[in-house]
């Protein structure tokens, strides 16, 4: 196949990828958009296989190797995609990020070996460009692969994945590791004879990936997943620089920018900078009220029958889900609750905080799985003004994102973080297992507010009991 034809095919693939992302701007067009993306990928793969088998130097086993790789990857990918529960999407996306980075790393490594076996390779005019790109692809790929494995392990709540710093002065060590990686890459770019530094750099980058991801806690996971998503794109882009392939550069940079944008949205929703999420700790509570001061004698709890009666006079109910909804798999129970309320003529809507759950849009997917129409699932800024006209707000497994301290206490570690103003509703029901603090580690005055009723229990069972009470009442 002539390079002109193959380049054109890669261009068509790139256009299809862009159109695919463009069509993700609305749920109605998104399904076809995704199919266009898949078509673009199919085109790129077919063209590349044709190029590979047309080459005179293809080995007899080459056909087999390509076929085996494609078959195993397809089967494994299909099984994972069909089996994964919607609550497990963060882990799935985490793993996929890692595989993307790992693939880019391996391609860069193989290209380096190939190049350095050419006659007189070190005198080629573009050698610095090539070596530099190879090292960058290896560096980002290794950080992405190992960082993503750790992130996915944490999301899966594997006990052996370490939390917190592994060694003393880890920030310093991380900085040193990163400097060594960059130094190695720069040295080899300047002096191609140092190309053997590739593997040392990759090993240091792998350690760096693990070290950077380990200390990051649960509620910061959305940011890390977005960042690793971005890295997997940048690694692909760097591989495009290595192989001088525009298709790779374009597709990779689309993914790279996507991850960065999501990262920015997540950080803004937490009122923290990216540096603060990655390297800082949430400010420790200084002089804030202890949970005893906030809760003692003020918390009112209620059971399903009492709560069920609240809805007899309610006209508008807003449900606010958090990570607890995913943990207790309560999305279908929530749908039943909405059905029961709507049967009584109550208007039901849903308010989603951008960082609810463990990845961007996590709650929306869970509610969509339970057949809740997406028009009723509203964004924070959109739904906040309506809480004053809401009779009952039901908070399920959320804590920090509804903590009014973010608005009122400038010393609080979550000060300035935008929250869902559920406290402005006439009555607030908080479904929660206990009064334990959220990720920020601070008490939540909402739980002790005059208009709040605590409904203690596992999310799913609590909601189902409430549904039974409403139906009986």
């Amino acid at each position: 196949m002539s390079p002109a034809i193959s380049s054109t095919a890669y261009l068509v693939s790139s256009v299809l990828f862009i159109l695919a992302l463009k069509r993700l701007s609305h749920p109605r067009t998104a399904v076809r958009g995704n199919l266009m993306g898949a078509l673009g990928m199919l085109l790129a793969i077919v063209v590349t296989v044709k190029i590979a088998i047309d080459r005179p130097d293809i080995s007899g086993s080459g056909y087999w190797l390509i076929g085996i790789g494609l078959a195993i990857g397809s089967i494994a990918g299909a099984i994972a995609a069909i089996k994964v529960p919607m609550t497990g999407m963060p882990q799935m996306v985490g793993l996929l990020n890692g595989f993307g980075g790992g693939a880019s790393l391996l391609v860069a490594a193989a290209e380096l070996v190939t190049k350095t076996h050419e006659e007189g390779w070190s005198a080629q005019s573009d050698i610095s460009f090539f070596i530099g790109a190879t090292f960058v692809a290896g560096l980002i790929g290794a950080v992405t692969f190992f960082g993503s494995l750790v992130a996915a392990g944490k999301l899966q709540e594997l006990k052996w994945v370490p939390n917190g710093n592994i060694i003393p002065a880890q920030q310093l060590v991380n900085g040193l590791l990163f400097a060594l990686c960059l130094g190695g890459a720069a040295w080899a770019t300047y002096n191609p004879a140092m190309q053997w530094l590739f593997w040392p750099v990759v090993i240091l980058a792998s350690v760096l990936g693990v070290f950077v991801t380990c200390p990051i806690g649960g509620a910061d996971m959305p940011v890390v997943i977005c960042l690793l998503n971005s890295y997997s794109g940048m690694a692909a882009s760097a591989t495009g620089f290595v192989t001088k392939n525009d298709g790779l550069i374009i597709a990779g940079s689309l993914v790279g920018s996507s991850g960065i944008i999501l990262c920015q949205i997540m950080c803004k929703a937490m009122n923290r900078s990216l540096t603060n999420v990655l390297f800082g700790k949430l400010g420790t509570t200084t002089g804030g009220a202890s949970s005893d001061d906030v809760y003692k004698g003020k918390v009112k709890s209620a059971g399903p029958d009492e709560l069920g009666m609240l809805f007899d006079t309610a006209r508008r109910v807003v449900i606010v889900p958090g990570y607890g909804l995913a943990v207790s798999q309560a999305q279908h129970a929530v749908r039943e609750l909405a059905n029961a309320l709507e049967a009584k003529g109550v208007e039901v809507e849903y308010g989603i905080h951008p960082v609810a759950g463990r990845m961007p849009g996590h709650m929306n997917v869970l509610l969509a799985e339970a057949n809740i129409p997406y028009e009723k699932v509203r964004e924070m800024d959109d739904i906040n003004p309506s809480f004053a006209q809401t009779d009952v707000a039901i908070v399920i497994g959320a804590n920090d994102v509804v903590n009014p301290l973010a608005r009122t206490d400038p010393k609080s570690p979550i000060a300035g973080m935008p929250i869902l103003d559920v406290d402005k509703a006439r009555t607030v029901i908080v479904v929660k297992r206990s009064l334990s603090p959220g990720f920020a580690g601070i008490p939540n005055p909402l739980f002790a507010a005059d208009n709040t009723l605590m409904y203690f229990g596992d999310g799913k069972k609590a909601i189902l009991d409430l549904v039974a009470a409403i139906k009986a009442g």
Partner: protein
Amino acid sequence: MSGIGIILANAAGASESLSASSPALMFVAAVTVFTLATFIGFEVITKVPPTLHTPLMSGSNAISGITIIGAILVAGMKLKWYTSVFGVIAIGFAMINVVGGFLVTHRMLGMFKRKG
């Protein structure tokens, strides 16, 4: 080769002719493509609503499986046994991304329904 980029770099005033591929021009061409594509990415992705952010991530995972292009070319080459091994593993990883990414995105998007 970095065809589009070389044309764009020329249009942008790079002095070498199309046939020339000095390393510097090649680098500029690649950076040109990278920069423009990043801008397109920013423009397109800021329009994706938060409701679809999870499908966006899994779908972009699938797109980052584009590394498969490099992986296929490497795996088919006869050089060292270990480059073939790298190539096959890379194809497998990238293909998990491609098939798993597009399929799970399709599954998710199918769940988003309107009223009634």
